[in-house]
């Protein structure tokens, strides 16, 4: 924990997309995140792992300022997206969230049609000049969400009528429709069955070619399968951060080893 700098040295230098330094999060009097520093690289899948309540989801929500919607949450530290502080006063969180999209644990399609679900983001951000462009964006996003073939004949059907896995892919399509640069995923597969999970994991791997993806997961196998970088959180601290392969085969910190071998968590 104290020798963060040593850990970071091993991170090889692709483009740094998100640069987080000395981050603290407080929920009222509770110190939920302590001194966390992470570099999120472009076109890479970064996985946050750790036992429940370790703060990995809280940290994820700092990255697109979703914690702003919680009254008692307070965030400190520096978060730089392409060198710009996202907590700067001049930054409109609304614009930030268009660049840093988010997919949630439980699939949460709006009670609207599939088309309107995907078109929602482009509409509010004014990304389409006309109906034809919007149609194009919707189709493109649904294709990227790997769900186009399943829903192309029923775009007017309500999004809530899809199966769980389809709903989650719809939510991913919805998130990519606003052309984000970073995609945050908060345990995207925890509510899905194994087949749907496999589909979503495959999708995440494809998304890597265009986006920087950050995924919070409970499943170490999933982290091993989809990510290139892994960060292990424990009790609000970042314990270890490095190449996924190294974390799982040769962890430096004894706590990481205990966790991946199933002794804590």
């Amino acid at each position, binding site marked *: 924990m104290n020798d963060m700098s040593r850990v970071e040295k091993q991170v090889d230098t692709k483009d740094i997309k998100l640069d987080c330094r000395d981050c603290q999060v407080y929920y009222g009097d509770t110190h939920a995140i302590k001194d966390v520093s992470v570099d999120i690289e472009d076109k890479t899948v970064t996985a946050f792992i750790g036992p429940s309540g370790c703060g990995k989801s809280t940290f994820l929500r700092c990255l697109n300022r979703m914690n702003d919607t919680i009254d008692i949450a307070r965030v400190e530290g520096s978060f730089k997206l392409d060198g710009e502080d996202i907590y700067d006063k001049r930054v*409109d969180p609304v*614009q930030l969230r268009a*660049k840093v999209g988010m997919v949630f644990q439980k699939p949460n399609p709006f009670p609207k049609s599939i088309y309107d679900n995907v078109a929602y983001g482009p509409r509010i*951000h004014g990304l389409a000049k006309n109906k034809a462009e919007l149609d194009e964006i919707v189709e493109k996003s649904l294709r*990227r969400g790997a769900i186009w073939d399943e829903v192309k004949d029923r775009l007017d059907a309500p999004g809530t009528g899809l199966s769980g896995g389809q709903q989650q892919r719809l939510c991913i399509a919805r998130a990519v429709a606003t*052309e984000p*640069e970073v995609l945050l995923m908060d345990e995207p597969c925890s509510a899905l069955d194994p087949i749907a999970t496999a589909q979503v994991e*495959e999708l995440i791997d*494809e998304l890597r070619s265009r986006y920087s993806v950050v995924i919070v997961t409970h499943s170490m196998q999933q982290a091993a399968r989809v990510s290139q970088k892994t960060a292990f959180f424990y009790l609000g601290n970042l314990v270890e951060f490095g190449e996924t392969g190294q974390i799982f085969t040769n962890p430096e910190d004894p706590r990481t080893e205990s966790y991946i071998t199933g002794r804590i968590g």
Partner: protein
Amino acid sequence: MTDASMQNAEPGRHSVSLMATDEHTRKRARAEKRFRAYGIVAIATGLFFLVVLFTSILKEGIPAFTRTVVSVDFTLTEQQREESEGVLLKTKAYSDLFITALKSKLDERGLNTEVDEVAIERLLGKVGGTIRTFYTQNPDKIGEQIEFDLAASSRVDGYFKGRVSRDTIQDSRFLQKSDLELVDALEEAGIIKQAFNWPFITGADSGVDNPGGAGIGASVIGSFFMMLVVLGLSLPIGVAASIYLEEFAPRNRFTDLIEVNISNLAAVPSIVFGILGLAVFIQFMHLPQSAPLVGGLVLTLMTLPTIIISTRASLKAVPPSIRDAALGVGASKMQAVFHHVLPLAAPGILTGTIIGLAQALGETAPLLLIGMVGFVARGYPDGFLAGFTEPNSAMPAQIYTWAARADAGFYEKAWGGIIILLMFLLTMNIIAIILRRRFERRW
């Protein structure tokens, strides 16, 4: 799962800084502010109405609690009494004595105003009769100096409260323009003054032409007896019904029927309950019209759903583990409910009952139909039992009666009545809140 479109590199990525807000975003931020402002405006409007309502209640109602009295020190000697009783027009003789006393009082202060008997009668009503009655009832006071507080007529009262002014007054048998000179002189002499209006709080309703003498006391008693009926019936019945539905009812059609009935009765307009009361209690069972008993019965039926709903909520809040514990030591289901669940739910039940009673206390519409409005409550009931069956009014019905009368002098009484009604409601609600705060248990 790959397809061609993914390879398209879209333009404009990485180009826009987070710090720069474009026109579209600014527009959205303005829309956000506007929307937020709508909410604030809505709440402010609601609160504005609340303030206007209470200001007008207080502004119009507080004058009802003061009255204008003519206060005169007056001594009647034995000799004067005998002389007055000897003449033919006895009350006129007393009245003359009073006017003489009044005149001397004015002269003392160096005020010279015409005082004649007709003007005094317009100001104070039949003074002679009042004085004579007093001395007939209290013969021992003869010879002593007595301070008489005589209520001024409602027009004079209105002159002091700004209802009547020199410009608006029309000469009539109630008050003439010239009388105002006398009134001013009396005021200057300190004889006419404002006093707290006890008769309004303790008195009974007056006739249609005497707004000054109207009091709300009798109808408070009427409301009290109604509330006794409501409490005595709706609490046990409501609690019993809730216990049945919450603890014992089997899941069957009849239980569903009861449930549906309760939720629908809670939303039936109150006037329909008035129709029920009229048809069943008065037409069919021939109970007396305008009686607090009938009013109480109607309000009971109306309050029951409220009480049942809140009682069930309190019973539901008692965790099942308490019931299991009682059953586990060998208590019967009935004992578990009556020994453990009911006492634990009691504060909640009581709170709900008080709020139900407060609702019933302010309810007017059903009372109109069972005759509580046509009746002028001129006196108090003759005893406890008579309180239930003798015709009486009730606070809201009395307020309505006053509001419906032609003489604007009654409006002030109606507003004053509202202040008293709201004070009762406030007290009941505060008791309910205190009960809830003190005894509420969170499991």
